[in-house]
């Protein structure tokens, strides 16, 4: 994609040597990557590869055991989640996590409370998802999975983030619904938002991404541009070692 403005390809997010532990378990190990303004980076990998942990660490919900995260040039590794939100990072968490006692509109209002003003107003969200307007006073727990996912994305967008983190938005949704949700991503990117997507559904991730980063058991197994990677490369990076690879790893090379 030639969406990235020339001469202004500034790095928005820079992750270097990041490691995250859940107790004894090492979920993310020495992962480095960067995302530039206007890019869509898809983080792919199998279940348990550490993708969600990585995203949650960027949002501030986990403390890294090593390495650093910098956002727009400033180190944010030690900031609390609400401070990172104030700087322009919004995470759409896995499983939607809506405020279940509230109406649709109240969920969006919570997003605006501490968020920045910008193009994504509540009105703009209703234009992005026209069905919302008429149901804005309904309680969200009655909504279908796809509708809840849309509300979760809306809630993150109304804060007008500069970096949007999407965690497994397609999980548990019907293909047609996934399609519809992914349709809005180009429109979000067009507003200058940098997007980092975590996906188990590789096909979906490759379709919207400008770059791909594959994780395997917490480590980087592949990086590249979607069009330039062969299916075989991706398969190996996604599912892990063939016999040859595992011998190499056992030999001490990482």
């Amino acid at each position, binding site marked *: 994609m030639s969406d990235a403005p020339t001469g202004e390809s500034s790095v928005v997010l820079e992750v270097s040597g990041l490691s995250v532990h859940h107790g004894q378990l090492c979920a993310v190990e020495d992962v480095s990557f960067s995302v530039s303004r206007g890019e869509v980076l898809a983080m792919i990998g199998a279940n348990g590869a550490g993708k969600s942990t990585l995203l949650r660490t960027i949002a501030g919900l986990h403390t890294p055991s090593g390495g650093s995260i910098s956002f727009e040039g400033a180190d944010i590794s030690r900031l609390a989640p609400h401070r990172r939100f104030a700087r322009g990072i919004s995470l759409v968490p896995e499983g939607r996590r809506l405020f279940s006692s509230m109406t649709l509109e109240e969920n969006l209002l*919570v997003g605006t*409370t501490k968020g920045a003003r910008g193009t994504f107003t509540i009105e703009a969200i209703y234009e992005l998802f026209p069905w919302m307007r008429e149901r804005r006073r309904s309680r969200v727990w009655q909504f279908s999975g796809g509708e809840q996912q849309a509300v979760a994305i809306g809630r993150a967008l109304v804060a007008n983030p500069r970096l949007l983190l999407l965690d497994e938005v397609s999980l548990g949704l019907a293909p047609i619904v996934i399609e519809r949700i992914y349709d809005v991503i180009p429109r979000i990117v067009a507003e200058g938002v940098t997007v980092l997507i975590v996906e188990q559904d590789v096909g979906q991730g490759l379709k919207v991404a400008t770059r791909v980063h594959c994780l395997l058991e917490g480590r980087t197994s592949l990086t590249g541009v979607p069009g330039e990677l062969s299916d075989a490369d991706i398969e190996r990076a996604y599912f892990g070692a063939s016999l040859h690879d595992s011998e190499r790893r056992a030999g001490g090379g990482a």
Partner: protein
Amino acid sequence: MTWLNIVIQGALVGGFYALFACGLSLMFGVMKVINLAHGDVAVVAGYTAVFLAPKFGVSPLWSFVVVVPVFALLGYVVQRTLIQKSIDRDPFTTLLVTFGLSVLIENLLLEVYTANGQSINIGSLIGSSFQLSSTIYISYVSLVVLGVAVAVLGALQIFLGHTKTGRLIRAVSDDREAAQLSGANYRHIFGIAAGIAFATVALAGIAYGMTTEFAPSSGVTNLIYAFEAVVVGGIGSLWGTLVGGIAIGIAQQLGEHINPEYQVLAGNLLFLVVLAVRPNGLFGKKTAPS
């Protein structure tokens, strides 16, 4: 007429229970903390009104003007320090810490002010009442307390429902992590919730001291009724707490009418029946499918 009197007197007491209980319900709803020292905070507010306020030239009748804001601040500070520290460890620690706080407060009050009953001197207002019928008298003070309870619950309802901070409090209550991802500093929100809880229970403590005598042990006694009001009404519903408080109040009056010894028993029985028949309480939130 006797029955009507039971209902009226029960409702008047019930308003006090609701005022006493709403902070307990809020703290449980927002930070999942059961503050076992909640009742003792009310008693401390009572002692503050009786002994400290006059030293600063504040008359006991108007002591709430000073005491309530001070307790709001105190609530915020206690939450951000002591209670937050215990939340960070585990939920059981908060029970132990607030229980310890309760014991500590009660014994300190015993040490300093003895076990003698105290009351907030409001002069001739205490005895004044009006006659509804030949057998029904309504005390002005009790009526004012009920009115204050309704006003406080109404104000709280509007605050939680229609202000930015109120919405953030509900967001944290629904899903703390998701609220953080929406920019809420949950520790600050916890502090605000505790501030409201301390302020309302301080008001309840002063109201209590105006209508009857209190002693260092009154906190624990009233905490039980507050618990019952919250559970009967349903956790998470402010108006439910009011209805629960009134229901407990009426049950107690009814018990007392049958035999003065049954006053407390009748309230507890109602609580047990509701717990058995409707564990979510009369107006409890239906648990949303997640």
